[in-house]
């Protein structure tokens, strides 16, 4: 356990020091994307990994976070930081509205229902004139400042903001894992009836887990909107994004604290690199590679890469 903490401190220290040592924008951008997806993966892991409820609709929370921020900033000039809070509020509301009926469904039924919810959200935003419809929303270019959440000369501030979000998400996930909530979620995942017999209110704990997942994902949405400064429905709510979150967790290890982190560090560079090296000729190859990875992992190693990392060392 001690060894684990040392490794974690070294890892986070290296992440913090990296942009100071290497000034190249590309690796910085890559690490920002990795940390963004790692944070979202951590969010997905809480509902999908710990609680075992496969959600193919988590991108909806990302979109809600991004859109809440963008709409408030463009129409009312409200700081993205407040937009972030409002986004979280709406995401939790959505999680509860969706979760209340959906969590009565089990397994496959739940997964399909979340696809349907995600697609409905996508269609709503694609046709909603107020939210820019299919074209999306361009953020106004504001003077560089922390309050405005916009930085134009360097990506460094974005880097540290996402680092903080990422570490916070990891902290939340750790707290969940080491609390009654986390134990209950795992019990629900393993045996619903068994869990009920021990006094666990299934609906309630699924809902709490889903809400935490929604908040983390929504904050990432806000960050994305401010980082890219342009959002549209398919860049923020696509089913593919929800799928990518599952893949990240599956690669790293479902229901393991560091699973999504490992998953993001493997998956994001892989997709970025295939895109860079294969270009438009190789479109689809990245999909083929990671789909094969999913299938292989799901059949032969459902515990993910985390199990390989920890094999041999103490449990």
């Amino acid at each position, binding site marked *: 356990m001690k060894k684990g903490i040392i490794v974690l401190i070294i890892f986070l220290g290296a992440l913090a020091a990296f942009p100071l040592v290497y000034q190249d924008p590309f690796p910085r951008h890559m690490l920002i994307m990795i940390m963004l997806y790692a944070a979202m993966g951590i969010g997905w892991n809480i509902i999908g990994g710990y609680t075992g409820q496969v959600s193919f609709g988590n991108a909806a929370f990302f979109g809600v976070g991004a859109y809440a921020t963008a709409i408030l900033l463009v129409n009312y000039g409200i700081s993205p930081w407040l937009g972030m809070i409002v986004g979280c509020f709406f995401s939790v509301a959505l999680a509860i509205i969706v979760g209340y009926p959906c969590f009565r469904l089990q397994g496959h039924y739940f997964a399909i229902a979340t696809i349907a919810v995600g697609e409905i959200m996508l269609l709503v935003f694609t046709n909603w004139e107020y939210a820019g419809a299919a074209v999306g929303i361009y953020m106004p270019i504001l003077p560089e400042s922390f309050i405005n959440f916009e930085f134009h000369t360097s990506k460094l501030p974005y880097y540290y903001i996402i680092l903080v979000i990422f570490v916070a998400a990891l902290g939340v996930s750790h707290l969940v894992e*080491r*609390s*009654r909530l986390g*134990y*209950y979620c*795992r*019990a629900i995942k*393993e*045996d619903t*009836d*068994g*869990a*009920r*017999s*021990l*006094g*666990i*209110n*299934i609906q309630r704990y699924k809902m709490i887990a889903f809400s935490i997942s929604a908040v983390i994902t929504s904050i990432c949405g806000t960050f994305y909107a401010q980082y890219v400064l342009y959002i549209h429905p398919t860049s923020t709510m696509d089913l593919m994004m929800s799928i990518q979150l599952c893949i990240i967790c599956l690669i790293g290890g479902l229901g393991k604290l560091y699973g999504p982190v490992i998953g993001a560090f493997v998956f994001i560079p892989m997709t970025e690199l295939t895109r860079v090296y294969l270009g438009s000729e190789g479109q689809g190859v990245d999909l083929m590679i990671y789909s094969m990875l999913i299938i292989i992992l799901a059949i032969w190693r459902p515990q993910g890469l985390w199990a390989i990392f920890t094999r041999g060392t103490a449990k």
Partner: protein
Amino acid sequence: MTKDMLIIDNITKRFGGLMANQNVSFSIAEGEIIGLIGPNGAGKSTLFNCISCYYNADGGRILFHGADISKKTPEAICRMGIGRTFQIVRIFKEMTVRENIMIGAFLKHVKLCDATAKAEETADLFGFTEKLDLPAGSLTISDQKRLEVARVFATEPKVLLLDEMMAGLNIQEVRETTDLILKLRDMGITLVLVEHVMEGIMPIANRVIVLDYGEKIAEGTPDEVVNNDKVIQAYFGKKYHAKRRGRTAPLQ
């Protein structure tokens, strides 16, 4: 008799056209060990699931300390102090023994360290001290059944409903189980045992309730029940019963 803590009042449960339970009534006093027996398909498990609210009865009431609980949810029942186990064990196989018991302990102990302490204390009582870190799925069936009891014991129940604790156990294990049940009774827990086999619970039950085709056909002390005509008929069939009658008749 002391005050009745759990009263089953006219419980009826149907599945489509099938009457699984029909107007079953009995009551349980604090500190008793009640045996609920009957041949296969007699409706024991259905009744059990009605009491623990996994099914909602179609008619009748279940009173616990005077309050009707028949429309509540399983988790609410557990929180009120009625714990249950399952015929086919439902332990969390991927978790360790300690974690399994902790899930139960969390009901009354919100903090992780308290729940851990409670779980380890419970494990001592049930003889799991050496096996705390083993995955529950690796235990033997009899250990798994015992773990299920330990797990629900950690929720600190007043009543325990144990479903077929002795099925598939060897003689030695049956003995251990009876000892365990007596120990639980001595700790002030009221027990309801569903069994298909009579032998195991006859020596320890205060009273036995016999179901057949969904109806209560007999109730009384173990001795009364084994000599009851209806019970013999239910278990061994009319033919055997007639033969037995025929054989015993001349002696009278």
